C-alpha cells in the first residue's frame, strides 16, 4: 500500500484516497466549438507515461480535498505533491 503525501494532512495510507487520473487536463471552455477528434482527445487520450506522472488524488477519507501529486509509475514513489491551483514544482 502506498503512503501518499496529502499537502494538507501529510503522509497518509492509500486506502484513504481516491485516484483522480492524469492532472492538468482542462475542460475546453467551449465544447461545442470543438470537432469530434478534439473532444475525444480531451475525454480519452492520456499520456500514460513510464516514469514521472502528474496526477490528481482526492483525500476522500481525510480532508476530502483534491490535490496534485507527481509519482514515478515504475517505482510508485511519490516525488512531490501540491495543492489544486498551485503551480507544479
Amino acid at each position, binding site marked *: *500500500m502506498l503512503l501518499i503525501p496529502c499537502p494538507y494532512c501529510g503522509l497518509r495510507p492509500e486506502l484513504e484516497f481516491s*485516484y483522480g487520473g492524469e492532472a492538468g487536463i482542462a475542460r475546453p471552455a467551449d465544447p461545442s466549438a470543438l470537432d*469530434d477528434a478534439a473532444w*475525444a482527445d480531451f475525454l480519452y487520450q*492520456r499520456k*500514460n507515461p513510464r516514469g514521472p506522472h502528474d*496526477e490528481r488524488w482526492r483525500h476522500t477519507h481525510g480532508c476530502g480535498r483534491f490535490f496534485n501529486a507527481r509519482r514515478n*509509475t515504475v517505482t510508485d514513489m511519490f516525488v512531490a505533491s501540491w495543492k489544486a491551483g498551485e503551480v507544479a514544482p
Partner: protein
Amino acid sequence: MQHFSALALARNALTGHVGWQKQWRSPDPQPAYDAVIVGGGGHGLAAAYHMARDHGMNRIAVLEKGWLGGGNTGRNTTIIRSNYLFQESSSLYDHAVKLWEKLSQTLNYNVMFSQRGVMMLAHTVHDVQVFQRHVHANRLNGVDNEWLSAEQAKDFCPPLRISPGMRYPVLGAALQRRAGTARHDAVAWGYARAADAMGVDIIQNCAVTGIVRNRQGAVEAVETTRGLIRTPKVGVSAAGSTSLVMAMAGLRMPLESYPLQALVSEPVKPIFPCVVMSNTIHAYISQSDKGEMVIGAGTDAYISYSQRGALHVSTHTLEAICELFPDFRRLRMLRNWGGIVDVTPDRSPIIAKTSVPGLYVNCGWGTGGFKATPGSGHLFAWTIAKDEPHPINAPFTIERFRDGVMIDEAAAAAVAH
C-alpha cells in the same frame, strides 16, 4: 520442425531423450523484413504465425524486449470464455474459443486446453437479472451459456458454499460449459515453435526504441537495441507498453496501464473441477494441473508499470475466496505477481489500422486478453496482411472513441475491475 507424437516420444525415450531439437531458433535480426511485430507475447506470436501460414508472408520478425512467456502471457489466470454481452464482443471471443478447440492439433503442441466450464456467481437480485440477460443474449448470438440454481451450482462445483447465512449468498450462477483454461506458457511456446518453422524470426532481448517514418509519413523502419530494421509494416502488440511504443510514431492512445494481480497457492490434490468467478465480491479461482489454486485479484486504482500490486487488493480477493470456499482458508499462498494491462475507456480491445500508413495496433485487452490469443492473432494478421480489418474486428477501431461507437462492456463485462 520436429513433429511431436506418441511415436516420437517412445523413440526418444528409448534413446535417452538426447534427440530432441531446440523448439525455435535464436536468429540475429536481418536488415529488412516484410513485417515486424513488436511484442512477443501470445498475441504477437499468434499474429506472426497466421501471417506466415494464411497470408504467405515469410519475412517476418517478432521483436520481444524480454523473453517469451515473461510478460502477461505468463502472468495471467489462463481463463478462456466468450460469454460477453454485446454481439461484437461475443463474436470476437467466440472466434477465439473455436480456434482454442483445435489449437493443440493445429500447432502440434499440447496447450492443455480444458473445457472445464466457467461459472459466474450471482449474489444479488441485480446480479441475477444481469446474468440472465447475459445468458439470453449469448444464446441469441450462438454462444452457449446457461442458468443454474444455487444447488445446481454446488453440484457443479462441490467446494462452493451456498449457505443462506453468507454475507453475499449465492442466488444462482451462469455457466458456460465450453469455457475453461489452457496452459499459458505452452501457448507462447507452441506459437513460437510453429511460427519459427515457417521462417519467422523470433528475436528476444530486442527492445524497439524508435519508429522511423518516411516523408509521406508511412512507416519505413524500426530502431531497436540490436540495430535498425527496415520494414514497410509494423504491428504493435505490446500490451501495457503500447502507449510508449505508439508515442514513438507520434500517436496518443486512449489507453491507461494498470497492474493486475494474480496469486497461486501451494499445490493440493484435485479438488476444484471448474473455474468460478464472482464479480460482485470480486474473486476468480481455478486449479492448475500442478494442483495450485490460481486466484485472480483486481487492478490497482492508479496507473503503474511496476509489475506488482498493492497488498490490500489481493487481500480483498482472498477474503472473498475464503467466504465462498471455507475449505481453502488454511491454504498458503506461494507466489503473487502483477502484469501491466492496457485498458481502454470502454474496456474493449483495439485491433486496427492507425492514422500512420503501415502501422497497426492490437491493444486494449485490459484484464482479459489471454482468452482471445488465437482469435486476436488471426484477426491482427489479416488486418496487417490485407491492410483492412476482418469483419469480426472491424468494429474494434481507435476511431470508435471519436465517433461514439463504443463497445461498452465496461458496465457489462463478466468481471468488474
